[in-house]
């Protein structure tokens, strides 16, 4: 059985729903579920600031953040790294994907305190306008975006995929990118771009 990342996510939250005794409506993906969850836990107290040290795009960064502040908000609002795009802010769409120790994660679903002592890579750490990564170049060459809003998230997911599997099949590319949504539907060109980047890197 093949489970896409999106499918797996559903299974995980489904699990929460069934194991949380007596709270069958507790599906965190819904507003109702959230409200139910919030009613179970005391209102999040504006916790004391926490000192956090992370390796961000290769440089050590020290920040302080409240316990309930997400990595997404810290990156965008405190560190002005707006390349990480907020989408659903609910762990569904993948536009805020960053790498945590090389693994793609939804930064809207991580608290900043969780990345203390870890490595975080955002789109700003992948390449720049003057120095594109092979994958970024391939996304441009293959026309792998339309509006471009989801593109940083896709590039992070694809970067992680190619690191763990430098020579993926088209099916493996699709599976690796199944946690990211592109509403413009650039998926065929995205698949082409990742395959072409893999081919280019492997032939170097």
């Amino acid at each position: 059985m093949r489970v896409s990342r999106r499918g797996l996510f559903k299974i995980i939250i489904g699990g929460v729903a069934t194991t949380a005794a007596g709270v069958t409506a507790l599906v965190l993906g819904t507003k109702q579920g959230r409200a139910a969850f919030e009613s179970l836990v005391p209102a999040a107290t504006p916790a004391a600031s926490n000192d956090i040290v992370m390796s961000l795009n290769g440089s050590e960064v020290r920040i302080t953040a409240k316990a309930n502040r997400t990595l997404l908000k810290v990156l965008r609002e405190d560190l002005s790294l707006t390349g990480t795009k907020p989408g659903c802010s609910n762990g569904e769409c993948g536009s805020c994907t960053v790498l945590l120790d090389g693994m793609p994660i939804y930064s809207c679903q991580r608290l900043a305190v969780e990345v203390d002592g870890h490595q975080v890579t955002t789109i700003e750490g992948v390449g720049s306008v003057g120095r594109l990564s092979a994958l970024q170049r391939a996304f441009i060459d293959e026309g792998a975006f339309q509006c471009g809003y989801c593109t940083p998230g896709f590039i992070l997911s694809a970067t992680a995929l190619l690191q763990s599997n430098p020579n993926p099949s088209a099916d493996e590319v699709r599976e690796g990118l199944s946690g990211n949504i592109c509403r413009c539907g650039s998926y065929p060109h995205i698949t082409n771009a990742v395959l072409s980047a893999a081919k280019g890197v492997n032939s170097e």
Partner: protein
Amino acid sequence: MSNPVVGTSVPDVRGKERVTGTAQYTIDLSRPNMLVGRVVRSTYPNAKILSIDTSKAESLPGVKAVITGKDVPEIPFPPFLSYDMRVLAGASDSYVRFVGDEVAAIAAETEEIADAAAKLVEVGYQPLPFNLDAKTTTQPGAPDVESSLGYPGNVQLGYSPLGMARGDVDAGFAQADVVFEGEYQVPPQPAASLRPFSCLAEWDGPNLTVYNDSQVIFVRQGELADLLGIPTANVRVVSQYMGGGFGEDNLYRFIPLAAVLAKKTSRPVKMVMPQDYAFEGSPNKRHAASFTVKLGAKSDGTITAMDLQATYDKGAYLAGGASVPYVGARAVFNGYRVPNMRYTTYAVFTDNPPAGAFRGYGGVQSNFAVQSAIDDLAEKLGMDPTDVQYLNCIRPDDVLEIEGRPVDFTQVGGSAFMEAIEKGKAATDWKSRWSASGAAGAPGQVRTGLGMALLTYGFGHKPDTANVSIYIRPSGQVDVMTGTADLGGGQPTTISMIVAEELGARLEDVSISLGDTNLPPAPFLGTFGSRTTFIAGNAAKLAAADARQKLLAAAAGVLGTTQDQLGTSGSQVLVNGSDQSATFSEVVRSLPGGASIEGAGEYVHTAQTSRSGFQFGACFAEVEVNQWTGKIGVKKLVMAQDYGRVINPRAAEGQMQGAAIQGLGYGILEDYVVDATTAQSITRDWLYYRVPTIMDVPEMSSIAIENPDPRGPFGAKGGGESMIICTHSAIRNAVANAIGVRFTSLPITPQMVIEALKAGGGR
């Protein structure tokens, strides 16, 4: 002089910004001292506001302003399309009419404070009866949806019924050997773009600047000026990177609210709408619609009469205007050479959120009805549906009365239907694989089916004007200035390519500024209706020709020859039959005073031509239907579409694929569900409202047909929306072919398949 830019696949000119995250979308903007805006929205679908108490919200530390209906001008909104909304409920019009209707707005120091303040605004509602069903809303005794707005009987007066006709429908049915009647319906479809809706409003003395994700910046500029009672010259609207842009931005009241809050607080205000706004309350959904279709045909498949009645659910306000149902009618009339046709549309009101524009505007709905009905008719006639389509579709040299005016299709690039059908059949191996009882394919419980549907659409469907300015700088750089928005459909690249081609410049020397009302308006109405390539592209071509003429005049002096001996290529002026040349830079530098060479182009898209932008195409689908699980697997989509002339092949392919993928979503995945007792949506995120992911994408084959439209730049037609118009219909027809169940509503879910088969609907 060969200088091929048009017709080659060129990377997006703003691609580097997009892939590095440096493209600044509205949500990425911030200002020192900026406040955060929030909107308080109705939780009832129909209610009278008895009281609004903002005192608790106002006394919360960090809250800088709370506004209600009494604080905003009571002028009709939106001025662009209709005039029946207002910016906030309250004041003299104290009703809310859908879940999400705006009631109050807040500006506060932080998001957290703004959210807390929104909860402290106390609104006393008297709930009123409501009706979410367009079928019953016009029946006697149905609740008055508009609650005093002036649409008695919940039908849009003055427009409805609104339709088109030609020939004599009754006479047409009298000639028919077979009459088929069917009923079809389609659900709403939220655009569901990922970026949260936002805007940033800031005042500098009397001048307002609004940054937003807008396709219609010039219209918005006028709208804000009217609303705030200030001169248009004092309003600047900027829309740089859209993040989505499928038509969904034209009814947003949070934008004027941000401007009012910014004025009141003398600070920049960034308004960010919650994520579920994309699903609930935002007036950006495709209209739900229902249809009755009656077709009469000869036994050889010749259709003698078509009679359609359409009911489009406007939701609680006319808002987006009558044009959606109207375009729905045209998207049928522009397709068939049937001599007797009648199309009647009704726009009715319900307590649903107002429906607006979404890619394929009106045509997606009527396409489903007509393409399903023709497929069903073919089955009744015992014919291959491609034969029925081929027989009745508009032919390249037809002259037909459309909207009361004869249209000679040879003057608009012909009709590509027959070519699209032939190419689609070849690409799906239709002749050897299709049979009336399904297609050759997987054996056993999984059945394979082939289906197809045609599309037609009028691009750039309103009179409009576009202006483009070009400056060839002393450096040799070519600056293009035009106000069109960058939706992601490749607009800046397409316009740059047209300029490069016409001017004889290298594409890398062309730099484009766009998305700002300080630039020349193009298209003035906005970047929608697949119009930019055609309307702004024509203006760009005229501007480039003008600049080239001036360049050659200056070059004649530099090169010591006459203009008629000169040509341009690769950003150089070349002398015919000689190796003498001068770069653009050298020519411009020869001018006195460090001047640039200017070119201006204005293209006026008149009413005369506005009905003549015709888009043709076909989608062919291959599906596998698992009769045990009900799962529909779309295996292959073949899209054949007439672009007139393809400017940028890879971008055109991307538009075909993206539109077809959105159509696939509408066909089998995207299920918008509203709780009938509360009128609240229960599919208000991307987990429950399932848009296609990369796992849903089938094998796709994109076929661009090129029948040049003599009026288009280099023969190009608009075509960004087209494939969404018929993909869902093609999939529906393929499912019918696979299992023999002719579904009449969307999306076709596994549950519907299983229930239909259980009820004996299959073969």
